[in-house]
């Protein structure tokens, strides 16, 4: 559904996105992570034809956004951080205005979507009277009106309270389950991404530093957690015997191919190094993300 190839974007002399290649297949919930200024919104802007790439190819739904924007966005819905509406108009009128930029939309379709997001009864009220949660629901409604196949969500939980965040998470899961939408989710809320996304990409200073399955991250990439009074001696011995290839943070080991935790335990016990515990580590997305962004970032010019 989304295919970015060697996409590069410069604002003046500052590189916002550096040679980014990314593919989001149909039916996936894909997470786009990164700190503020990492290039997430610029990347989304390029997917929606709001930001022109300096070079590279951006394809959405099989069409090049730069040259065939109308075809590319025909079946795309988008929600942005702090969705903006015409506050002095009703929710219904806002939906009519926004939907007519895509295609003629019947009142029946609007009613159906309003009901789906749970705004029935409030659609004739002016948007200025809406709560934050209601605005978020209206944002979902406007994104659903063109009957999209792809939904692009740029920080949709931003500014919501914990209850609103949970509601948004449930809605995204429902959109994927009931409407079979492909979803690109950009978020700072790592817990939400961990629960919702099947695959993620991490951007750091405009560069993609990781792309992979959330399940693989959770499995810790074969990392093993070792609890021992002398971690340095233990890792030195295990390295010498070729059982591990690396260690991290004074507690994690990366096993060599074909080696098991039993090999680790046996080697350490035979060498009289006490082992208090050894198990396969399940990494949280937060741990993984922080370990990625803590790595020395490249300076781009």
């Amino acid at each position, binding site marked *: 559904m989304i295919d970015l190839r060697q996409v590069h974007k410069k604002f003046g002399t500052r590189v916002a996105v550096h040679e980014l290649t990314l593919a989001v297949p149909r039916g996936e919930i894909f997470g786009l992570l990164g700190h503020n200024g990492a290039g997430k919104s610029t990347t989304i*802007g390029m997917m929606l034809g*709001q*930001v022109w790439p300096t070079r590279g190819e951006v394809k959405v739904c099989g069409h090049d956004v730069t040259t065939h924007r109308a075809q590319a966005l025909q079946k*795309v819905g988008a929600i*942005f951080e702090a969705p903006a509406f*015409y506050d002095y108009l009703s929710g219904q*009128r806002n939906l009519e*205005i926004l939907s*007519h930029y895509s295609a003629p939309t019947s009142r029946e379709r609007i009613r159906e979507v309003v009901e789906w997001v749970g705004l029935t009864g409030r659609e004739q009220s002016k948007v200025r009277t809406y709560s934050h949660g209601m605005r978020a629901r209206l944002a979902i409604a406007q994104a659903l009106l063109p009957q999209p196949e792809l939904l692009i969500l740029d920080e949709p939980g931003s500014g919501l309270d914990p209850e609103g965040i949970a509601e948004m998470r449930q809605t995204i899961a429902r959109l994927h389950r009931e409407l079979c939408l492909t979803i690109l989710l950009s978020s700072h809320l790592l817990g939400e991404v961990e629960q919702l996304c099947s695959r993620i990409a991490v951007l750091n200073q405009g560069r993609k530093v990781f792309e992979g399955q959330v399940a693989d991250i959770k499995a810790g990439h074969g990392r093993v957690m070792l609890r021992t009074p002398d971690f340095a001696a233990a890792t030195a011995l295990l390295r010498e015997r070729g059982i591990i290839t690396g260690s991290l943070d004074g507690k994690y080991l990366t096993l060599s191919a074909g080696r098991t935790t039993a090999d680790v335990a046996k080697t350490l016990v035979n060498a009289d190094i006490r082992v208090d515990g050894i198990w396969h580590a399940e990494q949280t997305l937060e741990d993984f993300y922080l370990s990625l962004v803590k790595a020395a970032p490249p300076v781009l010019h």
Partner: protein
Amino acid sequence: MFFAQLTNELWKLFGKKRTYIGFGAFVLVQAAMLIIFRYTHWQSHFQEMLANNGYLASEYISALTVALVMVSPQALLLMPLYVALVGGDLVAKEVEDGTMRMILSRPISRVRLLSVKWLGGIIFAAVLVLALGAAALVAARILFPWKGLFVLGHLPSGSPMFGIFPAAQGLVLYSLSHLFMVTNAVTMLSIAFMFSSFNMKPAAATILALSYLFMNMVMQHIPFFEPYQNWFITHHFEAWFLIFQNPAPWPQIIQSEITLAAISTTAFIAGATGFQMRDIKS
């Protein structure tokens, strides 16, 4: 679709309270001028001018005459201010508020979006001018009789203009003058719209448009630039008043109208080009 998008654009323009505050301000100024004309020496000055030229003042101190007196200063001062304010908001305010990002996540081309917005702005400017012209006439009719039109003013050349017309012809000329005033308003709006389409705040677009108009007006009145009058946009804005000349200098009026239409179109194309090239970010 184009019609639906245009209708929505008008909803956005006419749904704002500020729109009516602007209309209200115009009507208040008109009411104040009407009262001043009715109850001060202003009226007697007109009577004196008519009598000195051998006309019966009671035949020409009429609703049409007073309506034209009410409209003239508004066309010069209030209209540029208000139209530039609306034109400056058309694109830049949507970018500032974030609604432009919502719109541009839709499969509408930027040129089409700007075309709809510009056309909406043109309709708004036309409604504003025609509604105010009609309101001035209705208000004047309440206090003054329906009789001939007396026009007193200065031509662009600086020479005084004195015109007397029967009521029917006066009404035609009054209506025509408003059609030409619509061209003025559309040109002012288009200039503000052009700046609004570039990467700047709405207030900056309005100020730039007003500054450009003001600069034209100042330079037009510097004696050194006398031979270059056609180069100044404000010179062409005077076409609406020329039709009260007897006979009306139609070639000059048509030339000014074509020039203004060309300036509006150029401003739109420049704005659309700038908008097409820029990045829209939050």
